[in-house]
């Protein structure tokens, strides 16, 4: 039996060691079913006690101690007790399982313990460094964390470490600002140039505009009156009848000349357009264009074929609109 127990131990302890070395976190609960292929072994009371104590006092940091302790079980326990007695005392009063679990949990936070280890070690000069209770470790961690947080409350987003970088960034921002300003100015210049001459009329009826409006109105009125005269005179007559056609011509000519006689003496020479019409009327030709004798036959080129080709400007002035190419399109 003892051999079997030892076997179990030897098998179990390497397992423990393995766990401890690699993770340092897990510890088998005390009441674990025996591994496969092994019978349940009766453990006598003394061994049980021993095991319990071990569970309670288990600390992953004591791996090396454990190894040594494996050789002689009883002696090691004493040693254990001797070493850890100070730190473990408060916990002895507690429930075994609980204590073990706590220690187990504490060891599970190995990473955190690293912060507090030093401090814990420093605080308790008597106690071996790195060995801490869970609650103390928590408190220590809290303190440490708070210190760090309180320290790094700086308004600068870059952090205290990157002050050199800060300067660089400030320079770059200033540069960008300057660039933007110059660009904005250039754009404004460009816009101003584009808008040159563009005037938005603020007030609609300035006196000058009113004057222009009246001039235009006079022109329109004259035109409408002329049209009126021409058309009412013509109303009763039908252009297709020869007798009437002559009558029409007479009347329209008279009407036109009388009508146009007036404006040519006024200050506003609005007779310009009517001149074009008088030209036509003086032709003494039928009203409808194709009936005219020179329909589509007159063009600038043909008219002046015997004269110099570039006669100058006067030709352009005199004619109505003959300067197009004579491509006859119907």
């Amino acid at each position, binding site marked *: 039996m003892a051999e079997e127990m030892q076997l179990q131990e030897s098998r179990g302890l390497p397992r423990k060691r393995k766990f401890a070395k690699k993770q340092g976190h897990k510890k088998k609960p005390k009441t674990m079913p025996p591994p496969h292929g092994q019978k349940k072994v009766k453990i006598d009371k003394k061994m049980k006690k021993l095991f319990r104590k071990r569970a309670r006092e288990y600390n992953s940091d004591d791996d090396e101690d454990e190894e040594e302790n494996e050789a002689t079980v009883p002696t090691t326990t004493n040693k254990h007790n001797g070493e850890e007695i100070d730190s473990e005392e408060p916990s002895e009063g507690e429930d075994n399982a609980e204590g073990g679990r706590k220690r187990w949990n504490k060891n599970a936070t190995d990473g955190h313990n690293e912060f507090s280890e030093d401090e814990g070690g420093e605080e308790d000069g008597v106690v071996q460094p790195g060995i801490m209770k869970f609650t103390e470790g928590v408190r220590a961690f809290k303190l440490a964390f708070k210190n760090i947080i309180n320290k790094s409350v700086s308004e600068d987003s870059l952090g205290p470490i990157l002050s050199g970088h800060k300067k660089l960034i400030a320079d770059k921002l200033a540069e960008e600002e300057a660039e933007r300003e110059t660009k904005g100015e250039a754009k404004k210049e460009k816009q101003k*140039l*584009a*808008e*040159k*001459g*563009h*005037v*938005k*009329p603020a*007030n*609609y009826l300035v006196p000058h505009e009113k004057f*222009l*409006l*009246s*001039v*235009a*109105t*006079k*022109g*329109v*009125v004259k*035109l*409408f*009156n*002329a*049209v*009126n005269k*021409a*058309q*009412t005179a*013509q*109303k009763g007559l039908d252009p297709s009848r020869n007798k009437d056609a002559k009558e029409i011509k007479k009347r*329209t000519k008279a009407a*036109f000349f009388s009508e146009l006689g007036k404006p040519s003496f006024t*200050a*506003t*020479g*609005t007779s*310009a*357009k009517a001149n*074009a*019409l008088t030209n*036509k009327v003086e032709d003494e030709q039928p*009203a*409808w*264009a*194709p009936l*005219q004798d020179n*329909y*589509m036959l007159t063009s600038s080129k043909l008219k002046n074929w015997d004269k110099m080709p570039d006669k100058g*400007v006067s030709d*352009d*002035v005199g004619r*109505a*609109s003959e*300067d*197009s*190419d004579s*491509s006859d*399109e119907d």
Partner: protein
Amino acid sequence: MRKKKHGGFRRPFVVKTNTNTKQQPHLSSVDPITGKKIPKSFVFSRGKIPGPLKQLQMDLRKLMLPYTALNLKEKRRNNLKDFLNVAGPMGVTHFLILSKTATSPYLRVATTPQGPTLTFKIHEYSSAADVAKSQLHPRCPKDLFTNSALVVLSGFVSGDLPLQLTTSMFQNIFPTIDVKTVKLSSCQRIVLLNYNKDTKEIDFRHYSIRLQPVGVSRRIRKFVQNHQVPDLRNLQDVSDFVTKAGYGSESEADEEAATVTLSSDIGRVNRASMKSAVKLQEIGPRMTLQLVKVEKGLCSGEVLFSEFGKPGEKGKSDDENDGDSEGSEDQDQDGNGSEDDEDGEGEDDEDGEGDEELD
């Protein structure tokens, strides 16, 4: 039109649609009544022009409707020659060219294919949108642009050559109307060019014509026009509404002078042989122009008149005209612009449309 390279000459990539294609499938090029050719125009720009000027260009196009290409698309590579070549088959007689230099925008009015070119400096301009904004009641009836505008020139009586040219040019741009047969309802717009002798500036305005029956009280007229049921709360009887003398607006005094007797019915409210008042409202762009240069050819040729003397012949260097052999090249004095050579070189320089230097 597809772009074809044909011996170095490029056909223009010009896409045009006449707005009247829905109403009139074919715009005749010859007026059936007067027998004269209907003048058609292109309004386009040379060189890059800024935003407000583009608006002005659009407004000018609308002004020249219906005998213009409303959706004329031009590429930067199009040169004057391209436009000329397209203009021939389409029967286009006039070009209105906008351009801009550092000093001011310029408008050139030219007769194709080898007619004279008048260059105007635009001192001030406002687009149609600006004008509409400044008005309290902007009006733009839908069919305003289906007929071409009338033109009224005033103040041009001085009679010297450049002015005469100007008058004839502007008269020719707009189709003549036959007084005997014209329908008054088709006269809806008017373009006014007023010459100021002192400042030598030409005011360019564009109005819409509205006829209002005169002698009708304001309320009844509004009622008939707007179809809004009037408020008869405070009246005892309908006769009150009809006969009550409303206050006359100040514009009614002006109307007295502007009354015409119509020969035909126009719209619903204006009846023949009844007096109606002519009311104009400004639509469209406003410009203040000054004639600075007259050239014999199409943007080239001998300079017949130059406002600022003749400090050498400056001008926007465009390609040579078809048949013009006057021989005087346009050169840039300051060397800022560049010459467009269209004489058969394959690769055209897109940046050749330099700035026009006239000062």
